[in-house]
C-alpha cells in the first residue's frame, strides 16, 4: 500500500503572532512549522505504515527551505520526501497549486492521498479537494477517523451537526482534521537518519501533463486586489478589582450603562 501525504510549511499563527511597530504582521519573526492538519494527516499515514507496512511519501511545494518540514516528516517515520520548487510556480492560488501538485502526484504510484483539511496561513481548505478533482479520484473532506478494509477506506466524515460514515474505493484522497489523532514526536534515530536522507527535488520541467497556463501567479484565476493587516478595534478598559464584589459592581454598572439589564 502506498500513501502520499501532502504537507505545507506555514508561519505559526497559533499564539505566536508577532507584529511590527507599525502594526503589520512580522512574518520574519514567526516560526515556520508543519501545518497542523497536515501533521495529523501524516500521523494517520504513519499508523497505516505501522499496521499494514504502508510506504509513506511526503510531498510539498514551496521554497527550498520547505525541506525543513520534509526532514521533520522523515524523522517522524516517512519513507520518502519530495520537494516541488521552482520560481515559475510562485504566487500560485489554490487552482494553480492543486494543478501543480496533481501533476507531481501523477509521477507516483499511490493508493491513498492524505492532505490536511486546511493550512493555517490561507485557511481555504481548497487544495485537497481540487487535487482529487484534477486526478479524477474520490475525495472525502474533514476526516475524523479512518480505517482500511481491503481495497476500501472507511471514513468518519465530520459535518456541522452530524457525521457520516463513508466507504470509498481506493485510490482516493482524504483531508485530515487535527482532531484525527495526536501526531508522534520525531525520534533521535529518525532525526539522525532524516539529516542524511536524500530529498527528491522536482522543478517545473519534471512535471508532465501540466499546462503553463495553469501554474504560478499568471496561471491563477484569482488575483489579489488589495491586502492589508487587519486593524483591530483595540482594547477597552481593563480593571483589576480588589474583591469579587468590586468586580461584580463594575460589570453590573457597565451592563446598566449599555442598557443590557
Amino acid at each position, binding site marked *: 500500500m502506498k500513501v502520499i501525504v501532502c504537507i505545507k510549511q506555514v508561519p505559526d499563527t*497559533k499564539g505566536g503572532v508577532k507584529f511590527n511597530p507599525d502594526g503589520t504582521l512580522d512574518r520574519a519573526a514567526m516560526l515556520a512549522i508543519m501545518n497542523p492538519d497536515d501533521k495529523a494527516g501524516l500521523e494517520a499515514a504513519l499508523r497505516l505504515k505501522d499496521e499494514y507496512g504502508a510506504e509513506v511519501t511526503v510531498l510539498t511545494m514551496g521554497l527550498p527551505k520547505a525541506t525543513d518540514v520534509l526532514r521533520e516528516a522523515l524523522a517522524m517515520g516517512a519513507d520518502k520526501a519530495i520537494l516541488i520548487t521552482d520560481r515559475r510556480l510562485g504566487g500560485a492560488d489554490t*487552482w494553480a497549486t492543486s494543478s501543480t501538485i496533481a501533476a507531481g502526484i501523477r509521477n507516483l504510484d499511490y493508493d491513498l492521498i492524505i492532505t490536511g483539511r486546511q493550512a493555517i*496561513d490561507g*485557511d481555504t481548505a481548497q487544495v485537497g479537494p481540487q487535487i482529487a478533482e484534477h486526478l479524477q479520484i474520490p475525495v472525502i473532506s474533514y476526516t475524523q477517523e479512518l480505517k482500511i478494509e481491503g481495497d476500501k477506506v472507511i471514513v468518519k466524515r465530520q459535518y456541522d451537526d*452530524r457525521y457520516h460514515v463513508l466507504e470509498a474505493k481506493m485510490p482516493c484522497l482524504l483531508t485530515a482534521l487535527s482532531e484525527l489523532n495526536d501526531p508522534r514526536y520525531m525520534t533521535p534515530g529518525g532525526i539522525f537518519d532524516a539529516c542524511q536522507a536524500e530529498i527528491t527535488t522536482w522543478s517545473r520541467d519534471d512535471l508532465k501533463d501540466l499546462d503553463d497556463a495553469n501554474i504560478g501567479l499568471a496561471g491563477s484565476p484569482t488575483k489579489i486586489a488589495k491586502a492589508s493587516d487587519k486593524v483591530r478595534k483595540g482594547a477597552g478598559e481593563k480593571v483589576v478589582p480588589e474583591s469579587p464584589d468590586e468586580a461584580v459592581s463594575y460589570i453590573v454598572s457597565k451592563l446598566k450603562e*449599555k442598557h443590557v439589564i
Partner: protein
Amino acid sequence: MNLEEYKGVYVYAQQVDNQISGISYELLGKAKELAEPLNADVTAVLIGSGVKDLADSLAEYGADKVIVVDDPELKDYRTEPYAHALASVINEFKPEIVLVGATAIGRDLGPTVSARVATGLTADCTVLNIGDFPLQPVPGQEQKHNQLLMTRPAFGGNTIATIACPNNRPQMATVRPGVMQKIEPIKGAKAEVIEYNPGFTPDNRYVTIKEIVKAVSDTVDIMDAKILVSGGRGVGSPENFKILEDLAAAIGGTVSCSRAVVDAGWKPKDLQVGQTGKTVRPNVYFAIGISGAIQHVAGMEESDIIVAINKDEDAPIFDVADFGIVGDLNKIVPALTESIKAELEKK
C-alpha cells in the same frame, strides 16, 4: 471563454434533511444586493431529492428563479453527485457569480466544482462588493468594471485580502455563515422554477454512506443568540460550566465555548466560537476563562460589547474586550449571577 455570455447571480441553496440551511437565505440577501448594479437576476440552485417544495421559501427570501436538480442519488450530501449537479448547472446556465456557504458541505463542494469548471474560488469571504479591478487604474493594464470583489481574512484573521477573478467565469466565493444579512421575507413571493437533471451515473467517485449520526443537541444556535456566555479552558472542568449556565439563565443568554473546551470533550462542537467553529456577533459576549487566541477572536470580535473575565492580566482577550476584569472567575461569576438576578427583580 467569452466572459460576456455569463449572466446572473447564483446561490447554492444548501439544504440538509430537506430543510433549507440559514446560510442559503443569507446568501440570497447578499446576492440581491450584488445583482442590483449588475442589473441581473438572482437564481437559487436547489439540489436534493424531493426538494422542489422548498422553492417557494427561496423566493420569499429573494430568489427570482430557482433551478431544481432533483434526483434520488442526491438524497444525502455526497461530493460527487452534488458536484456533478452544480457543475452541470454552471455549464448549462452560465452564471456570472456563484455563491456557496462556507459550511462543512460548501467547503467541499465549492473547491470541487470550481476546479471542474476551471475557475477561481475565494474561500470564507466576509465582504462582497461589485467594483473595479484593479481598484485604481494602472497604466498599461485594462481596468475591468463590475467585478466581484471578495474580501476574506487570512493568517488566522490577522490579515485581510480583497480578491478578484477578472478573467474566468463564474466568479465563485464561499461565504462565512452568520456574516451576511437575510432580507425580511416577502410573503407569497413566487420564483420561476426550472427543473434540470443532468443525469447521474454512479462510478468509482460515488462513495457509499454507511451510516449517518446526527449530533443530539437541543440548544439554541449560538449564531442566533443575543447574549453569549462563553467559557474557555480556564473554567477548569465540564462540571464548572454550571456557573456559566446559571449566569446565562439569569441574563437570558446562551452558553458557548472556545476550541480548547471542545477538544477536551467538555462541550459539543456546535457550541464552539472561532475560526474553526462559528462566527458570532451577539449584543453581549462574555469571555470567561478564555485566553483569546487569535483564532477565537476571529469568531467573536464583531460582538457589540465584549466583557472578559480572566485571572491572567496579560491574556490577549483583554486586547479586544470593551470591559476587562482581571480576577477569579469562580468567585466573580456566581456573584455576578446573583447581582443580575437582584437587579432584574427590582424592575
